[in-house]
């Protein structure tokens, strides 16, 4: 009987290794192209990089003001992540309460999710210009300060916290705000991690909104740097793929750093009532 169990374990490992290989192939392919300069239209493509060198990364660093774009993207992402955690927690806590019109509010949130941002560019720009936030970090971050999926993640995490704990805290005379901070948040650190990673991803990858709202090149973010790179180098050299690697690295870095909490957040946030 035991070989049967071990046999199924090997089968599972084999399947997962296969899946991982398919998922990792594009990463390898972009890395391989980033470190070589051979004519990338030659056939057959070489599987192993031929005479690899890292100078493409140096070209990218100097071709566009990479540190400046990196700084802009980081500032916007920090702004978005911080506000996301605060606003989403507040909204989620409100949604755990029952008040008249709660179902309507949930439906409003769900339908807001379905409005594509690409179609709302012009009114969004007009509103931001009325608020005087054009060409500023706050303006870049404004539409992303709160996201609906994250509110639901927090809502599930708050509902997983036993009601008895919340009532005990209220009896001790804690104010609502302190209840969120002292009782609910510590128990849902994993949901916080989820918020951090998702908010970071969506603010870091925003492409169309920064394009519209920034005027000076010094205010642009990394995706716009990539678009400018694309326009001029027309992917004929390895440098474009070196740039893609340098743009992907921070997202992967943040995910791997917050990965333990993030996975635990999504996997235990909504459980163990």
């Amino acid at each position: 009987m035991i070989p049967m169990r071990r046999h199924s374990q090997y089968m599972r490992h084999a399947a997962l290794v296969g899946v991982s290989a398919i998922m990792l192939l594009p990463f390898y392919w972009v890395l391989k192209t980033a470190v070589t300069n051979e004519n990338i239209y030659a056939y057959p493509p070489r599987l192993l990089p031929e005479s690899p060198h890292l100078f493409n990364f140096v070209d990218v660093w100097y071709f566009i003001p990479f540190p400046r774009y990196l700084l802009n993207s980081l500032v916007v992402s920090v702004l978005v992540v911080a506000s996301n955690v605060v606003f989403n927690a507040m909204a989620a806590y409100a949604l755990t309460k029952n008040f008249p019109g709660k179902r309507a509010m949930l439906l409003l949130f769900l339908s807001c999710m379905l409005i594509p941002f690409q179609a709302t560019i012009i009114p969004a720009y007009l509103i931001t210009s009325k608020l005087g936030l054009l060409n500023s970090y706050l303006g870049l971050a404004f539409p992303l300060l709160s996201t609906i999926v994250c509110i639901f993640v927090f809502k599930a995490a708050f509902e997983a916290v036993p009601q008895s704990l919340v009532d005990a805290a209220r009896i001790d005379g804690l104010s609502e705000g302190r209840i969120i901070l002292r009782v609910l948040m510590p128990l849902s650190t994993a949901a916080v991690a989820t918020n951090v990673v998702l908010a970071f991803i969506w603010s870091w990858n925003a492409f169309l909104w920064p394009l519209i709202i920034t005027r000076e090149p010094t205010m642009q973010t990394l995706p716009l740097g990539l678009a400018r790179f694309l326009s001029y180098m027309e992917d004929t050299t390895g440098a474009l793929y070196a740039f893609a690697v340098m743009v992907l690295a921070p997202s992967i870095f943040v995910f791997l750093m917050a990965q333990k909490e993030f996975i635990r957040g999504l996997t235990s946030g909504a459980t163990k009532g």
Partner: protein
Amino acid sequence: MISRRALLKSGAGAAAATLAAPAIAQAPKKISFLTWNIIDQEPMIRGWIARFVKDRPGVEVEWLDKKGPEIPVFYQTQLVAGTPPDVINTQGALGLEYAAQGALLDLTPRLKAEASVRNRFNADYLSNWAYEGKNYMLPFYITKTLLFYNKPMFQKAGLSDPPQSFDAIIDAAQKMTSGEASGFLTLNFDWLYWPLYAMNGVDLLSTDLTKPTFNTPKGIEVTDRLAKATEAGTINKISWTGRWVEPNGAFAAGNVGMLHAHSPAYFFVKGQGKWVTPETLGVAHAPGGFATPNSHGLGISTASKNPDLAWDFLKFVTDEGAQELGVNRKLVTGNIAVDTKNLADLEKSDPLVYSILRTQLEHTDRMVGNWRLGNDSRVKEAFWPELQNALLGRKDAKTALADAERKVARELKRG
């Protein structure tokens, strides 16, 4: 502007109410200059601005450069918000669309007042940006299509000089097609393929631009022959599916007989094609001298607060600036004096580029594919997908052109 944002950061932050107090600071006279993907000439353009501002105290010029596909998004959002850049550089017929919308200033009175400026430019190219008889833009740099051909492939197929007619193109292409090699390839964006129809006497619209006139037996016959040639591999399929990197890359790979494209394609092909030398790359006009222009123009936004300053900047760029631009980027600027001088120098320093740029100034009276339409992109969206279906053999030529005619007529009626 800045004070309001700092106030916002320190204030309630997200709950920002609409602030009533506009900051009326005595801003210096400022104009903004939006260019189309010319970031590689940053030092030159910064130099222009420095020189322009030096002897005009209190004037500021803000320079913005955007990638081609991003200019419509950026410019129109700014237009709606009422803060468009004062001077804008557009490619092909996009400028006419903005003029038709009323976004660009009519330059005819200024040109009439300063004949010296008007006579500076090649009249045919200047008239490319005339919408309903009024001039809206000045040439920044100009290009039109020509025929590049692979001399070694020509010699191998026993051909000596470039084809002089549509049939000659098809025959020459057939002789060179074998295995991976194909005979002919063209670019297809912004009507660049239209000379193939013009040399057969087929025109898209009537002279008064009100009715489509391409759905004729001759038009169907030409489309059919192109489709059959594509089917047989004589015409490389990338002509109808590629955009810029694919067609030029294929010609640079060295197994395509002819490339019908405009002059900037040369620099891409030279960058990628090791085989490209003055001896191996042939340059000629398309049969009949027909060519579709794809030039860059400079216009002034009607909502500009300093139109005179913008006009002054326009005159500066198309005179002093043109000289530098022509030399740095090896192109033709439409400024007659500058072009003749640059071409004279180029004849000695780079004969191949000289022969290419010379074609851009010849047969300028036979320019086609440049109908002065206010809704050019809509007519193009109505016509091209149908033609593409026919050329790729997904529809027979007759039904494709009939569908295209119905759609183009509808777009023309909508205005």
